[in-house]
């Protein structure tokens, strides 16, 4: 029964990892910007929801709307006012990375100052487990996590394949120069990518807040997993990032079946290293040719 329990836990965690990883992969794939501050977006969304729903007592739908708007706006603002100026002055990839890292630190400290540096959680009966069978517990948030991931991925797939903006984003990831030739504005498309990628962290942030809780440094772990999942899934592949996130969530939990808990996070990175060594293109990544 322990194995089954860990499998259920792994699917729940993996679904949330998949959502944040797809958001990161979408941004990186479209814009080639290493958006380390993706973790900061996750943290901000969680805390906005917490403050409105748990502290101010606002209806959950209003808090959700605010968290969603906040995440999207933050992503776009970072792109417009931090990354765009650096790229306009021909800043290097490393310069953008350092700027993004700096934003993460600033946001972490601002959140700590505004909301306190301790742990907070979004209290909800949905996080309390129900005993499905002797020794097998699952909270409603497990089903919600999977449902949210499925809905978001179906919506994202529709958006990217059936809308002009979605197709333009896919074109941007393939060939930014050709996108300009067709009269599209890569800068505006970049903003769309950031907005969309940032929106995808919201379900994960809220569900993490309800299950594991929030702390100002939460974004660091999220960022690490998003990056690992993107590589495992294949850089540029959203489907791959989703599979990578799910795989890492499962690996992290199933490792507890036989290994001590101190090794469960290390297993995540062993999986990453195995992919880097034996399948560097990831699940669905494309091998780059010159």
């Amino acid at each position, binding site marked *: 029964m*322990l194995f089954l329990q860990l499998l259920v836990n792994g699917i729940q965690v993996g679904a949330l990892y998949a959502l944040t990883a797809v958001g990161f992969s979408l941004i990186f794939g479209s814009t080639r910007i290493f958006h380390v501050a993706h973790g900061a977006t996750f943290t901000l969304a969680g805390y906005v929801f917490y403050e409105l729903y748990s502290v101010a007592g606002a209806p959950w739908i209003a808090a959700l709307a605010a968290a969603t708007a906040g995440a999207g706006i933050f992503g776009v603002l970072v792109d417009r006012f931090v990354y765009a100026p650096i790229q306009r002055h021909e800043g290097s990839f490393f310069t953008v990375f350092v700027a993004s890292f700096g934003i993460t630190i600033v946001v972490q400290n601002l959140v*700590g100052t505004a909301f*306190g*540096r301790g742990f907070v959680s979004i209290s909800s009966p949905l996080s309390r*487990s129900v005993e499905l069978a002797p020794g097998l517990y699952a*909270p409603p948030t497990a089903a919600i996590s999977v449902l949210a991931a499925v809905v978001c991925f179906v919506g994202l797939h529709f958006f990217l394949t059936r809308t002009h903006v979605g197709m333009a984003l896919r074109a941007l990831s393939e060939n930014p120069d050709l996108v300009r030739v067709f009269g599209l504005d890569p800068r505006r498309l970049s903003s769309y990518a950031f907005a969309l990628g940032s929106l995808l962290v919201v379900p994960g942030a809220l569900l993490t807040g309800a299950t*594991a809780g929030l702390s100002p440094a939460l974004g660091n772990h999220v960022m690490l997993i998003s990056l690992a999942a993107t590589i495992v899934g294949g850089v540029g592949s959203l489907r791959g990032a989703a599979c990578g996130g799910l795989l890492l969530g499962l690996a992290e939990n199933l490792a507890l079946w036989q290994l001590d*808990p101190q090794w*469960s996070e290390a297993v995540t990175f062993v999986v990453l290293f195995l992919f880097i060594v034996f399948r560097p293109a990831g699940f669905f990544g494309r091998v780059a040719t010159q």
Partner: protein
Amino acid sequence: MLTRSRALAGFAAAAIAAFAAAAASADDITIGADLPLSGPNAQYGDIFSQGANLAIADVNADHMLSKTLVMDYEDSQALPQPGVVAANKLVSVVRVPYMLSAFTSVSKAIAPVAERSKTVAVNGGGVGPDLAELGDYFWNVIPLANYEVRAMVPYLVSERKLKRFVLVYVDDPLGDAILKELQTELPKVGGELAGALKIPRDAEQFAGIAARAREAKPEVIYIASFGAQQSQIIKQFRDNGVSQLIVSYSGFDIPAIKQEPEAKGALYTSQRMDWESNDPVTKRFVTEFKAKYGKAPNYYAANYYNAVMLFAILAQGLEKKGEAITGENLLKERKAVGTFNLVGGKTEFQANGSVIMPMQINEVDGKDGHIVH
């Protein structure tokens, strides 16, 4: 015309002036504090510094020393390496004779710096038993974890008839020390350590670990972690079907745990401190702490108040004798005086620089907690 070079020169001059103004003057006595000011354990740094700052204010208000006492805070982030960097700065740049420390791992890392430079380092928060063996210049004003476990285990086994324990402990000297204590103490009273689950310091997901803990069928879950991680463990264990009694050491004595709904009913040990005492030092501390911070004090704040007061008492003694306030002289003075009137009553130092205090067991009740034993 304002050229770029003139603007840069003006900015540099302003920065230098601001820096010079902020630096301690020659009229001050500066001591250091190597505390977590950022990161997941910053809430402890907030609590520690509240006690320390109150003591600084009282020392200066009472004119205990010939000069103004000033604290230089450096950020350890509760991690050994930043802690050593901070300690080196306090010792080599600021040249403090005395510094506050916290967290077992940080204290163990900075102890050689203190010993080498003959700078007194005082811990009021870390509880690893190893902290009693870090040399002449490392002192503890908090009873260490071995005493905490020795208070909790007999109570649970003999009085509450709970014998089967599972330990969830952080990968840190503190966690290792509590594991060792439980392995030693439980068999003595007829208890059993049914499982020991070691977790990384930065772990945040505990649903799977809750499943492992449930598998061992414990009667008690002992949590040996700190900071936000403790709160996460408690919440996720309760959410994932762990209904057994949760117990811990004094690390639970923080607002985040006391107010966490899922922590209600949990037990934790701490040094015995009578907040209602009429002893003038304790009464003054409690009154002033409530007035300044709008809440009741806790043991950590009291320990760091004591740590600063201890310095002031020793330094006052040295000034009366016309001796310089150095680490060496502070050590000699502590050994000569031996017992001090601090918050909580008379505090006596052992030869190894640690204190022994009576312990109590507290229960989390959603407010300030209450004593159960």
